[in-house]
């Protein structure tokens, strides 16, 4: 692990990333760059390859072709977790159900023996307070709501003092109020620590609410990268169909 003592973000470059499963090509040559310290949202419909892309970026999948660079330095997929302080907030939160909330948040520090038990308790309290869950350290994950689980997952990510945080569908399964709270946490975190944040989501409100830049992905390809305003005005049928999809009232 790099020994940097702050969260200051790293840049991320992805070039020509390809991945197939059982002969079906899921990523068809993905190219994009995330600037250090920005919130970059990859937005697209379900099944467009967003989660598979994220797994490559955190080192859980190895690409068939293409490369990932962090701060311009090419890194193998399997090296990423070991070489850079990257953290991922999973769609489900992925808290360890057999541990308390406090043990979940302090797991990284405890397993790598980076701090004494007393210091870990203090850090856990601070990080939980940062996400507005100061009194939950002794609770079990099963006792928390979906939104609280996601915020605990963010607190667990913060303990790593990450240079890059990846969020997988951070507002899925949440009610609108909880979605806004989680989105606000992501923004506040970026303002406070200047960590690079890459968010994968199909939530249009979240994307336009927090993103510095947005990439639209569909069928394993990036269709457009731009600021929220540029994306809104991008005249592509697939992008416009995704952005303007809404329920229609059927009248008899």
């Amino acid at each position: 692990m790099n020994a940097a003592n702050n969260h200051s973000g790293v840049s991320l470059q992805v070039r020509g990333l390809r991945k197939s499963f059982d002969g079906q090509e899921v990523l068809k040559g993905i190219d994009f760059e995330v600037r250090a310290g920005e919130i970059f949202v990859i937005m697209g419909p379900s099944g467009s390859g967003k989660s598979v892309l994220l797994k490559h970026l955190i080192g859980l999948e190895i690409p068939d072709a293409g490369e990932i660079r962090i701060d311009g330095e090419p890194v193998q997929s399997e090296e990423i977790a070991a070489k850079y302080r990257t953290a991922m907030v999973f769609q489900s939160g992925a808290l360890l159900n057999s541990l308390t909330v406090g043990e979940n948040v302090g797991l990284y520090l405890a397993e790598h023996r980076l701090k004494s038990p007393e210091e870990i308790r203090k850090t856990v309290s601070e990080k939980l307070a940062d996400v507005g869950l100061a009194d939950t350290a002794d609770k079990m994950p099963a006792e928390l709501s979906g939104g609280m689980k996601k915020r605990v997952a963010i607190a667990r990510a913060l303990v790593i003092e990450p240079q890059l945080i990846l969020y997988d569908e951070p507002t899925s399964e949440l009610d609108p109020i909880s979605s806004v709270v989680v989105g606000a946490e992501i923004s506040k975190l970026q303002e406070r620590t200047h960590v690079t944040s890459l968010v994968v989501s199909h939530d249009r409100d979240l994307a336009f609410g927090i993103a510095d830049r947005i990439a639209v992905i569909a069928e394993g390809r990036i269709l457009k990268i731009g600021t929220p305003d540029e994306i809104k005005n991008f005249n592509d049928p697939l992008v416009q169909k995704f952005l303007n999809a809404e329920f229609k009232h059927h009248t008899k």
Partner: protein
Amino acid sequence: MFENIGEMVLLFWRTLLALPLAWRQRQKIFDQFFEIGNASLLMVCILSFFIGGVLSLQIGPFMADKGLVGYLGGIVGYAHARELAPIMMAILIAGRIGSAMAAEIGSMRVYQEIDALRTMNINPIHYLVLPRLVAIALALPMLVVFSILVGWFGGAVVAAVNSHIGVSYQGFFADLRNVVEIKDVVNGVFKSFCFAIIIGIVSCHQGLVTIGGPRGIGRSVTKAVVNSIVLIVIFDYILTRILLK
């Protein structure tokens, strides 16, 4: 089952390489050890008592008819120590603990908890497999020693109480002492150690390769128990051949 043997050997090798980290994981090992003992002790006690008892009941009257009832303690003691206690306890633990291991690790895999560990640079083999394997490798031999003692007692009770057999406690244990040597008990304990490794590796491997949600977890649990039992029986034959020499 056999197509995964290579993966299981690799998992065993990686866990062996992680053994120096066992002291760091001592709290988890203790927790697992306690869970195995706590969950199994009563069942081990009941099962062993009745295995010893039924062995006496099956053999005792026949030997009494042939005038060989004086050898009953030795035969029951020898068979229970070398064969019945290790294999029956291994099958019990495969069902009781192996299934729990596969289910727990499998659900962690399905619900991305193992992915979360990897993103924190925590090796799932060190964190999940090592404590379970060390705990079961310590607990099963201890349970087998306990099972041997209870099984002998069960055999002695039936031999004394059953009117067709009519061997006293003193007579049963005197013959048992004449026939059964300490190496027979060590033999059974060694077998159980090998069976524990099989249960631990098969169950953890099945958990780690679980895919497909709750149905996948169920499939992994079934495969963990069935594959463990099949391998235990195969290795029982191989170990018996080796240890008889």
